[in-house]
Every structure is written in C-alpha cells, then in structure tokens.
C-alpha cells in the first residue's frame, strides 16, 4: 500500500516547513480559497437541485474522509462505516429530542458518542488485522443495524425518529439554501482538520502503522493506541456526517444504514484514492453524480425511438446498483490508485508538455 502515496521523483523538500505545508504550491492555495469562495455564492448561481447534491456531497464527504483516515492512512479495514454514520444520525436526533440540547451542540456530541461506539467495536482491531478485521467490522455493522431496529428509546424503532433543523441565535437553517452554508462550513472545517491531523505526530504515526507496523512499533509508535485512535477519529467523522444528514432530512429511519452504505463509502475512497484527502472529495463527487448521470442517460434513451425498452426503463434501480459494482471493479483493475493519482498524472503531463520527461 506504500506506493499509494508515493511522490514522483523530483519532488525535493529542503526544510520541515516545506514538508509540513497544507498547500504544496501557492497556486493550489489560491485555487482552493477561490473555490471555497465560489461555493459560497453557489445558491445564487446554480439550480436548487444542484444545491441538494452539494449538501449530499458535504455530509457524505465528511464521513468518507473519516473512512479514508482509517483505511487509506492507517491501513485498517472497516466494513461498518455506514452503521456508524447511522449511529451519528440517530444519536444527534436522540440527544436533541430527549435532553433538549440545542442542535448545533448535538452534532459534535453525536460525533463523540459515535467515536465511543466506534472505539468499542474497533477494540479487537488492536489484536487482529487484515481479513479478520474486515469480518469483525462486518459483524459490527450487523449488530449496530440490529440495535437500531431494537432500541426504540434510541432510534424510535421501525417508525424512525424526527430531527429538528439546526437553529442558531433564533435563526433556523431549515431551507436547502441556508442548510447549504452549514454543510459547506462543516465540510471545510472537517477537511482542514483532517489535513492538519495528517501533518501532526499522530497523522504520521497512522501512516507509519500502515506502511510497516512492526517497524513503527520498534520506532516507538504505540500500535494499539494508534489503531484504536484511528477507529475513533474515523467514527467521529462518520458521526458528524450522520448528524448533519439527520438534521438536513429532518427524519431518520433505520433502513438506509445497511451494509450497502458501508460499501458505498469504501467505493468512494477507492475511486478517489486511498490515502488522499483531495481524492476523498473526488470520489464522493463521482459517486454522488454517478446515479444522476445514469438517470439522465436513461432519460435521454427514452426520447429516442429504440430507447423505450421496458427492461431498461423499469430496471433503473438495478442498473444503478450494477453500475456501482462495475465502477468498483473497473477502478480496482484499471486505476487502483484512484482519481487523485490520475489527476496527478494529468497535471504532470501538462507540466512537462510537450516533453514527456
């Protein structure tokens, strides 16, 4: 897995400051700042429908970043991320309705609750790894799902639970446009935090555990601590994402948080690039837009003469599912390092154009 973050040769750093920057070049910094500013004006510029997609990208992106910290940076495997996402959603709604804590406080609290649950289920990770860990987290997915269906005091059972919209100083963020700013702020905040985490001692320890855990331990990195911490951080992100999801939709029901959701999170980070923060966002955008593109594709086909095949039109839901499977397989076979790697290659191509070397 070490090759995933390998830099191309010719990328020399001469000081720790250079090694520690968030933005590698000035251009990247300005582009990022301008993109965020442009996104602030998005509700004025684009259709309301795209705003809902952007909100979706935000809360899924936060959760996916958490999974990437666990899988991409620490080299652990989790097949239970969807359940943690759901736990965050329910926890936030539960804290709000049962204890009447203001919603904007509920979201981080839900994050911490999910962190606790994640660490509890991640605890065996201190001893097991690889396949056994994958299956242990699969078990945690089913156990948490079962808990949602059973614990009526927590999740409202089969009826689901209501979540109030976020309100701050008497202003309720209950429309798509207003919630968009909450989502955007959370996304930027959590991503900056993720970047900073990866620059810190703990972040470097995660990478060391991934690349060669025995060497890491010899160098004084406490394996158990960092594996557990990684589970905690990843569940915290999942919890925050889930809580945002809950307060955006206003209603949480247990059906959504299945193994399929966990797989979609994994698909996002694999498509984007394991061990890449930028790649996480790319993968999320890809996975959010994939069903939309398919839907409009089928819509276009309907307009042509030969396109109105009942099998295709009725089977759209299955085609979407199949596309997810195919995309995962395709990326793993043809581009195992994800969109982030492809992006670097495209950039390098133009940097050296017309001379390949």
């Amino acid at each position, binding site marked *: 897995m070490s090759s995933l973050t390998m830099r191309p040769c010719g990328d020399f750093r001469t000081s720790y400051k250079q090694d520690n920057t968030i933005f590698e070049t000035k251009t990247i910094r300005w582009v990022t700042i301008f993109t965020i500013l442009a996104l602030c004006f998005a509700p004025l510029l684009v259709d309301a429908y795209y705003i809902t997609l952007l909100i979706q990208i935000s809360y899924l992106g936060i959760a996916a970043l958490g999974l990437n910290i666990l899988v991409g940076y620490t080299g652990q495997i989790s097949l239970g991320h969807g359940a943690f996402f759901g736990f965050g959603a329910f926890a936030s709604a539960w804290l709000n309705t049962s204890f009447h804590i203001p919603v904007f406080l509920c979201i981080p609290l839900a994050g911490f609750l999910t962190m606790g649950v994640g660490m509890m289920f991640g605890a065996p990770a201190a001893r097991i790894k690889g396949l056994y860990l994958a299956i242990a987290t699969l078990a945690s997915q089913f156990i948490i799902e079962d808990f949602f269906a059973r614990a009526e005091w927590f999740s409202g059972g089969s009826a689901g639970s209501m979540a109030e919209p976020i309100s701050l100083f008497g202003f309720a963020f209950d429309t798509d446009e207003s919630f968009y700013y909450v989502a955007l702020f959370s996304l930027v905040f959590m991503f900056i935090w993720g970047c900073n985490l990866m620059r810190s001692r703990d972040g470097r320890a995660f990478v060391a555990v991934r690349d060669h855990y*025995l060497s890491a331990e010899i160098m004084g990195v406490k394996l158990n601590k960092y594996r557990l911490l990684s589970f905690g951080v990843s569940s915290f992100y999942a919890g925050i994402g889930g809580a945002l999801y809950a307060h955006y939709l206003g209603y949480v029901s247990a059906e959504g948080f299945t193994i399929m959701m966990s797989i979609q999170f994994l698909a996002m980070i694999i498509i984007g690039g394991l061990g890449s923060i930028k790649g996480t966002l790319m993968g999320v955008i890809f996975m959010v837009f994939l069903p939309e593109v398919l839907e409009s594709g089928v819509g276009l086909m309907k307009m042509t003469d030969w396109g109105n095949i009942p099998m295709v039109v009725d089977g759209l839901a*299955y085609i979407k599912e199949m596309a997810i*499977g195919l995309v995962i397989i395709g990326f793993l*076979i043809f581009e195992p390092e994800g969109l982030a790697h492809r992006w670097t290659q495209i950039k390098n191509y133009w940097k050296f154009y017309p001379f390949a070397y």
Partner: protein
Amino acid sequence: MNFELLTQLIVNGLIVGLLYGVIGMCFVLVYKSTQIVNFAQGEFLLIGAWVCWASLIYLELPFFLGFILSLCFMAAFGVLLQMIVLRPMIGEPIISVIMVTIGLSIFFQALMKWIFGVSPQSYPQVFDTQSINILGLNIEMAYLMSTVIALLIMVAFYLFFKHSKHGLAMRATAFDQQVSQSLGISVKQVFAMSWAIAATVSATAGIVIGMVNGVSDSLSIMGIKVFPAVILGGLDSIVGAIVGGITIGVLENLAEFFDSQYLHVGNMYDIAPFYVLLIILWFKPYGLFGTKDIERI
C-alpha cells in the same frame, strides 16, 4: 422447557450447519489456494439456483439434467470470473481484493434481481413426499437430500485432496506458490480449478436451499452468514470450516429457541452468530483452527 421443539431445532441446525460447512469449505478452498477472500460466495449460490430454476422452467428439462447443466455453467462461470476479474488482483493489497469481490457481489446481486425479479420462485416438485418422519421428527425430503449431498461433497473433497494428482497440486500451491510453480505445477490452472470447484459446490448448496425455501435474492445472505462459521474454524482450515459451520448452524437455532421461549427480543436467529464471532475474535484472533501468523522483520 419444550424438548420436542428443542430437538427439532437442533436437528434443523445440524442440517443447515452442514450446508454452512459446505459453503465455508468453498470459501476456505478459494482463500487457501488463491489468497482471495470471496465476498461473492453468496452470489454463487444465487446464480446457481437461478440458472437451475430457469433451465427447469423455461427449458423444461428434467431435474437431474437441469442440475448437471447448471453445474457445468457454474464451473465455466467460475473459471471465467477468475480469468477476467481476479487474475489482475494477484499481489494487490488486501483491501483491493476484498473490494473487488464485494463489487462482484453487488453487481451480480443486482443483475439477478434485474433478470429474475425480486419475488421468490419455487422449484417444481422433485420428490413425491414432502417430508418424512424419522424417530418422531419431521424432516423435509429436500433437507435429507441436502444432508446426503453435503456429506458426499465432504467425502469427495477428502478423496480429491488426499488421493488425486490435482488435489495434491492444489495443496502444494496453497503451501507455497513459487516452489510449486518451479516443480512444474501450473498455478494458473490450480487457481482456475479452485474457483470452478467453489462455484459448482456453492451452486449445489444454492439449489438445495432453493428447493426448500424457494429461490430469491435472500439466498445471497448465506454468503455473509458463512463468515462467522469460517472465522470460528479459522480462515485457512477446511476441517475448521465444517466444524464452524455445524456449530453456527446449531447455535443460531439454539438462540432462536431461547429467544422464542424466554427472552422474546426477536431476530436472534440472524444476529447471534455475529456476537459469537466478535467474542471469538476477542479471545482467539485466528479462530479455533487457523494458523497463527508469526512475523519477523
């Protein structure tokens, strides 16, 4: 305490457990010889059962012919899958290998739903009598047949690995790929063969379960339920898979029994194996029969 129900459930558990054991054996076989964890095992059952169903309904073949036809189909399918999708994954990190099989699982599950619909379909009547009475217990004919088939498969596995040239080649490959390749064993062939065996044997299990419960996409859940069984036995032990399968089969029925009699929490049948799995991994991280990795730098 309701002893009649208890014995009935334990017998059911043994029968289902044998099937888990068979599916677990395929899983272990693929894992041992190709180092690939097959999350698409349940889809093998599903595809096999649907192909057999289609050949019985649409082609109107007699059961035996349809059965053989679907086994042949599954063997070819397993080999093709290995060649097209899984061969490029050799040497990739474990997360990629897991995700590829998960991708396959999603793809085929959706494909089967798309082609055959979501409502369960039942096989045409195969046996004259539905169930027979052995020592006061009602046992369905199909279950009896499944037990016989499962035992036959296990014996066949034993003979194959112990006494045939190909079986020996597969064991050698599982032990050390490079050494066996240098001794003239075609590792490619071994990989293809293990996928073909896994696909056909799982398809057999799928058809048997389909005859009892009808074919629907819930068959693919068997592929997930087999994980507690193989973990219990240790991922790379064929004997462990059988022991684990039977244990899990009995255990989920016992959980069901205590739940229905005393606890009344519901859904214990599905969830109890996963609790057991977590507990086992706490105390024995490599399962009961699995080989421990001893790592050196």
